[in-house]
């Protein structure tokens, strides 16, 4: 049996929890898209961002304030 990743389990659970209907084809698409981005999302989930500072009132048209 193929292992189901935690993020795939999340996807199934979230659809059910929020009452979002998805047919088989849509679920296959979601799983496909998810699988493309899952490694990156997993990196993001586990990245060491402790101590990283938020940029308050970020103005994307300019460099960050020092």
């Amino acid at each position, binding site marked *: 049996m193929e292992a189901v990743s935690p993020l795939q389990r999340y996807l199934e659970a979230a659809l059910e929890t929020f009452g979002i209907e998805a047919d088989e084809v849509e679920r296959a698409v979601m799983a496909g898209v998810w699988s*493309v981005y899952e490694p990156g999302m997993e*990196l993001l989930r586990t990245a060491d961002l402790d101590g990283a500072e938020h940029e308050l009132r970020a103005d994307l*048209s300019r460099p960050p304030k020092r």
Partner: protein
Amino acid sequence: MSALDLGLREQASRIASGEIDPGELLDECLARIEERNPELNAVVATFPDQSRRMLERATDGPLRGVPVLIKDEWPLPWRAETVGAASVPGARLEPGESGPYRALRDAGAVIAGVANMHELGSSSTGNTSVYGPTHNPWDLERCPGGSSSGPGAAVAGGLVSGAVGADGLGSIRFPAAYCGLTGLKPTFGRSAMDGHHIANTETIVSGPLCSDAADCRLLASALFGEPLPAGGGEAGRRRSPTDQGLRIGVVRDPYWDDVAPGVRELCEAALEALRAEVAGEVIEVELREKDLVLPASVLIAQSEEAAHLTPANVNALSPELGVLNRGILKLRAILPGALTARAFLVRAKVRRELAELFERIDVLAWPTVPAVAPPLTDPTIELPSGPSSADAGNARQAVLANLTGVPGISVPVGRDGGMPAALQLLGGWGSDALLLDAAEALERATDREFVELRPGALA
């Protein structure tokens, strides 16, 4: 040669001197759309009466009487945008005066039509739209690039000399690269955006797609509402390539290393040509958080559009919406909030890192897309790391600019297997004119060979 085949600035200049009648130019443009659009599907609406009215009322601006197209992403006073889709969940789309419309009108331009786009702007391919796929003029069976597919195919196909696109995760730069054009993704907030259905966006900007950098400069100036002088004069700029000594940063892994060999070779040659032209320096640099840039960018962009994705809305999606978008929208509706919060933290880190980097370099350079346009029916690409969806590979190369707000430009650098390849340059915040200068330097270095290439069937 038809006046329609002249560049944007040449058309503007000859109209101003009386050499070209703008009414005849518009008629010729509409006739060409009728003639070539059935093959390209780049234009989804024309409105000759409104276009003629724009011409009658055209200001004496820098684009007086010049026909252009606008992507189906903004309303016009006589037409609501459709975003290439049968419906846009939660959005109320109505006719109106959008920012890009006003910018074009105030510059004296004539909007000849609305250009196709990938459905809901959700892909770099352009192979899906409620109006049908757009076709690449270089090979009608291949993707034109998206999501500004219509603007790209229309300019490359000679329907107009300039078009306004939008770039949220690379959507101007991809069609520019696939269609052999120059495309500028401006610094965030610098170009007109009012009226966009994602009013809260911090990633999407409007920008020009044209044959070359000088035409992009002209159209961008209209969208910015201010001139973008060549060779200097931009506030805060450090130097111009024409001043000699441009510092060009390259991040090898993955932006150069994981690229199809033919594209990489062309981009390496272009990089060397640019370096030599500006007596510059190529500096190997690192981007510490590069692996987090793509997931953070995707999450932030997706969350911008998620506010209206209630279970009721996504359960009632139109069956006419493509299956890919139905899946994406439902996925978007359940994205974990904590991950999105982390994405904003990554954005802050990357912006700080980039600000430090732009103290040491003037531009970053790497291939705009890792492989040339794939087939419309199978948009996968072969990379050194293995087969990849074109979307994943393309997004990786582009999203740094959208995540951080910096400008980027895609410049054609030759053909790989008959299809255009392109080099991307990214600059610091507000350095749009510097990027245009650098693109012009590259054009000079290559005797304008690549910006003057036209699809064989249309030459």
